């Protein structure tokens, strides 16, 4: 029987796997293809009011006064809230996905208190009987600001002369403690070995500086919430979120309510990627509903999503990597400066941890700085922190390969972390699949297809450590033998299908007889949010536990029914069976058979898994990309893309492939065109899908997905989380490909056409004469490198 920390993949489990590993149709699918599925904005309650938020027009200002009297007096306005409706919160750090947050900052981000710290910062909110009245009411709120100088860029924000956002922010992690407040919230460092000595032994050293612009998760569904508060103070909330238990916790805390008095239902979610692991509208909707005594529905516009919900950091990175002439990495140093937005808490720590982690290195030092600046507080974005640091490191690895004339895949294989490698940030890796993904890429037809002039091929690897976490899931066997499954982590794309497959195989029932739902916070125990690539990993583990309870229970019932000893009964191959002394004496009973006599044998049949899932295994990936550069315009076209990634065990191969492809394409956008563009006035200039340029279907080729499976020995099915790793390698892979196509190393993201064209022109590479003489760049050396 499988243990939570026990055996490897299904070959060792005594469960025939009919559904796990196959491409079942997801149980929630029909509603999604017919438009019936309800996302948060699709919910309505009778008598509901429209909630709208008044947002700061200034990137940095002190709030002198807020006068809401005229708005309150407007007919149709049923409630107005400001900072006065939220009690201040003491400083307390809490986990949120792979990042930490502080309630003192959360309450201020949700509703500005002393200052507004970014354009779009919420200052007040109204609930009114119509959109028109709500809009009019916002215009009637009079806010007096004292405008302050602002700072956006991370390096500028670190300058001692920069405008300081928080007068009580003193850099943590430096000795002695600074006596002047600054925008540097903390400094962190990891180190192993001796990098001075290491660099001293290097035959080749590459040192580079990189800059990345902030990018947004880009979910198509804007934030939305519907809240209704009764006269006795109980609240119900429907919201699009990655963590409805987290929403419950935050609302309870911010509004001074008992947790049990808030029931949060997670609607279907139209994308999150980490951006919906925090609260924005929910506490406002609850506060407004409490005041108005009517349901309040709030939906962000696309402009609000860009201006007021957390994108990820922009960053400045310096990387120095040294290698011996036969390709061994002897020392690695990196400095990461990440923007946190208006409040501390950028993902610089995971960025620091991941930077050199794919490689087995004796001497590593990585320093990170968490820096605040006047833009929205950053939220997690798919492997938060790692895409940025690994963009830099994987670019430098490529340069080392070129300098040493070693194939870039071979160089990575030579240095790859394997089972037993100790990462610079602490853990020793168990079995991992980095080398398998490198070999998989090497074996593809893609790897050896010849290239034309102005085309280039690039490769990069990456990983994410993944998390487990608190998870509850339940299985109930209904009277007719069908099974109801309740999970507690919102399904962002394929979870219900995966969990249903696990439950069906565990209990030996047909897949179609298992109906999964995502339970609201009142129906199931605490679940940490969907993030950290944990929902299938932890959910499957919890389902296994729930199934164990049921199987043990059915054995007890059968033992009574058959009047035999407990050790003579077992559950295997979908039925309770007599064995040992009682073998052959009783007809096996399937789950459905047991359900028929449930009442007589002890009552309803069910099981719950309540775990804090441990043993999350890292997922490594390697990406290979071909690009073509138009030397006259700087446009970069992705010609071909291959992803090879270790899933441990793919419960549902199609949805695992989907994660590979979706993450890769987000990385393509990050590499080529996505960026937050600020004016000198500190205001966002591209707060819409027109000028925040995410990849469209015509920009891309097919994304070939290669499923590698190195089972995670600490999961009953061998599962590794897969959702985040795919966004880590693309930017470096593309930069490496562009370098091969043009001879130019780009160190700034995005590598948009004006930048590419400028670089080509500066090097005289695209004059009419150069192009006419057929001076097309192409790869040279091994495998086109």
């Amino acid at each position, binding site marked *: 029987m499988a243990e939570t920390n026990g055996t490897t993949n299904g070959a060792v489990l005594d469960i025939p796997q009919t559904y796990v590993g196959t491409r079942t149709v997801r149980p929630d699918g029909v509603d999604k293809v017919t438009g019936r599925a309800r996302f948060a904005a699709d919910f309505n309650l009778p008598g509901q009011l429209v909630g709208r938020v008044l947002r700061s027009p200034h990137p940095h200002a002190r709030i002198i006064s807020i006068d809401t009297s005229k708005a309150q007096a407007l007919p149709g306005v049923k409630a107005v809230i400001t900072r006065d409706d939220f009690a201040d919160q003491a400083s307390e750090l809490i986990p949120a996905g792979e990042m930490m947050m502080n309630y003192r900052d959360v309450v201020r981000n949700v509703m500005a208190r002393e200052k507004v710290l970014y354009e779009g910062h919420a200052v007040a909110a109204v609930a009114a009987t119509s959109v028109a009245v709500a*809009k009019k009411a916002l215009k009637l709120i009079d806010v007096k600001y004292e405008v302050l100088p602002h700072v956006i860029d991370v390096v500028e924000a670190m300058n001692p002369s920069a405008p300081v956002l928080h007068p009580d922010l003193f850099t943590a992690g430096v000795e002695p403690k600074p006596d002047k407040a600054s925008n540097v919230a903390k400094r962190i460092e990891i180190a192993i070995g001796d990098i001075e000595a290491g660099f001293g032994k290097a035959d080749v050293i590459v040192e580079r500086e990189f800059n990345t612009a902030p990018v947004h998760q880009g979910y198509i569904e804007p934030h939305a919430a519907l809240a209704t508060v009764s006269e006795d103070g109980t609240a119900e909330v429907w919201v699009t979120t990655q963590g409805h238990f987290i929403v419950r916790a935050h609302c309870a805390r911010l509004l001074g309510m008992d947790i049990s008095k808030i029931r949060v239902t997670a609607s279907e979610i139209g994308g999150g990627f980490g951006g919906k692991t925090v609260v924005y509208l929910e506490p406002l909707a609850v506060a407004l509903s409490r005041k108005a005594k009517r349901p309040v529905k709030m939906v962000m516009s696309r*402009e609000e999503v860009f201006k007021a919900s957390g994108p990820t950091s922009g960053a400045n990175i310096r990387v120095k990597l040294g290698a011996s002439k036969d390709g061994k990495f002897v020392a690695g140093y990196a400095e990461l400066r990440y923007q946190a937005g208006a409040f501390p808490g950028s993902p610089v720590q995971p960025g620091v941890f991941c930077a050199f982690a794919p490689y087995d290195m004796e001497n590593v030092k990585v320093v990170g700085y968490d820096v605040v600046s006047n833009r929205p507080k950053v939220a997690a974005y798919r492997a938060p922190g790692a895409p940025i640091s690994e963009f830099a490191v994987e670019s430098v690895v490529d340069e080392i390969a070129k300098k040493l004339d070693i194939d870039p895949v071979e160089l990575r294989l030579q240095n790859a972390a394997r089972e037993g490698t100790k990462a610079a940030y602490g853990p020793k890796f168990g079995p991992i699949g980095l080398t398998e993904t490198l070999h998989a890429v090497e074996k593809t037809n893609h790897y050896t297809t010849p290239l034309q002039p102005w085309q280039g091929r690039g490769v990069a690897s990456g990983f994410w450590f993944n998390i487990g976490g608190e998870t509850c899931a339940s299985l109930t066997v209904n009277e007719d033998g069908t099974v109801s499954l309740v999970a507690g982590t919102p399904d962002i794309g394929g979870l219900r299908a995966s969990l249903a497959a696990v439950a069906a195989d565990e209990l030996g029932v047909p897949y179609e007889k298992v109906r999964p739902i995502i339970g609201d916070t009142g129906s199931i125990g605490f679940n940490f949010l969907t993030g950290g690539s944990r929902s299938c990993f932890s959910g499957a583990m919890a389902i296994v536990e729930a199934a164990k309870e049921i199987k043990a229970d059915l054995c007890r019932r059968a033992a009574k029914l058959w009047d035999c000893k407990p050790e003579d009964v077992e559950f295997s191959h979908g039925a309770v069976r007599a064995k040992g002394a009682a073998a052959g004496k009783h007809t096996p009973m399937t789950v459905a058979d047991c359900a028929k006599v449930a009442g007589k044998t002890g009552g309803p049949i069910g099981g719950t898994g309540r775990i804090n899932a441990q043993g999350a295994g890292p997922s490594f990936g390697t990406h290979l990309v071909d690009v073509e550069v138009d030397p*006259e*315009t*700087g*446009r970069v076209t992705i010609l071909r893309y291959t992803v090879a990634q270790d899933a441990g065990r793919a419960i549902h191969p199609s949805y695992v492939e989907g994660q590979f492809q979706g993450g890769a394409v987000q990385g393509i956008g990050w590499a*080529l*065109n996505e960026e937050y*563009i600020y004016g000198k006035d500190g205001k966002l*200039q*591209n707060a819409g899908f*027109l*000028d925040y*340029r995410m*990849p*469209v279907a*015509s*920009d891309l080729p097919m994304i070939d997905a290669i499923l590698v499976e190195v089972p995670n020995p600490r999961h009953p099915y061998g599962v590794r989380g897969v959702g985040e790793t795919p966004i880590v390698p693309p930017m470096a892979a593309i930069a490496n490909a562009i370098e091969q196509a043009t001879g130019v190393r780009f160190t700034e993201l995005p590598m*948009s*056409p*004006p930048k590419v*064209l*400028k670089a080509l*022109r500066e090097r005289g590479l695209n004059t*009419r004469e150069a192009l*006419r003489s057929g001076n097309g760049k192409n790869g040279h050396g091994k495998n086109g490198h």
Partner: protein
Amino acid sequence: MRYEAPDSLDSAVALLAAAPGDARVLAGGTDLLVQMRADVLEPELIVDIKKISETRTVTEEKGGWRIGAAVTGAELRENARLKQAWPGLVEAANLIGSTQVQGRATLGGNLCNGSPAADSVPALIAAGAMASLVGPKGRRDLPVEDVMLGPRKLALTKGELVASFLLPPRPRGSSDAYLRFIPRTEMDIAVVGAGVSLTAEGGRVTAARVSLGAVAARVLLVQAAAQAIIGSTLDDAAQDRLEAAARAACQPIDDKRGTVEFRTQVAGVLARRAALIALERARNS
């Protein structure tokens, strides 16, 4: 906010002329509705012109073509004869936005939205199109290059609207092409747009018009670029002259979509590429 959908030009003109506040013409709505939703515009009156037959018809007239101001890009694309006669104009109109947007967007709206980055305008100007304006004082025709005077600044007076466009007859051996540069492959506003219409005899360019969009405060008709290639076979020397003339005409800005340097550089490239396509099409016509 009032909404009227008159079925005659006279009624439309009367409504627009009499409107006390901001009155807007509604054709496809792909700019107007976006601006209203963003609270950039709050018209007092919307005049929907799609019930007026002149705005919705495409007819051959006097050897040329009369295209209603509210004919959609998709309808233009589905008109096989027009597409064959003016492939550049039709492809320009069908680069605006997405398939969904092309299902509604119109030449009239694209011009009167007043953006120098409009995709169909360089093609219209290169074609030598005339805009037929109807207003309280009657009808007048203006070359399209004289309609948009600057960003959001039109030559229309109060009560005037664009009813249709007239494309001139063109001799045999003529064709046109429109190219734009955008960072992605679809959906972006043009960073540079280049429309070229030309006539060729025996491989030699005998007449040409070159228009550039998104590189100045209005869409440019670049006489010098046309002169650079008239009389030539578009050999390397002519191409270089064309690029240089196109670049010299640019007065672009730095904005979130492109830099001065980038726009100027690419304007030359696109003018050349569009001219080559137009010449190839003219040879095959």
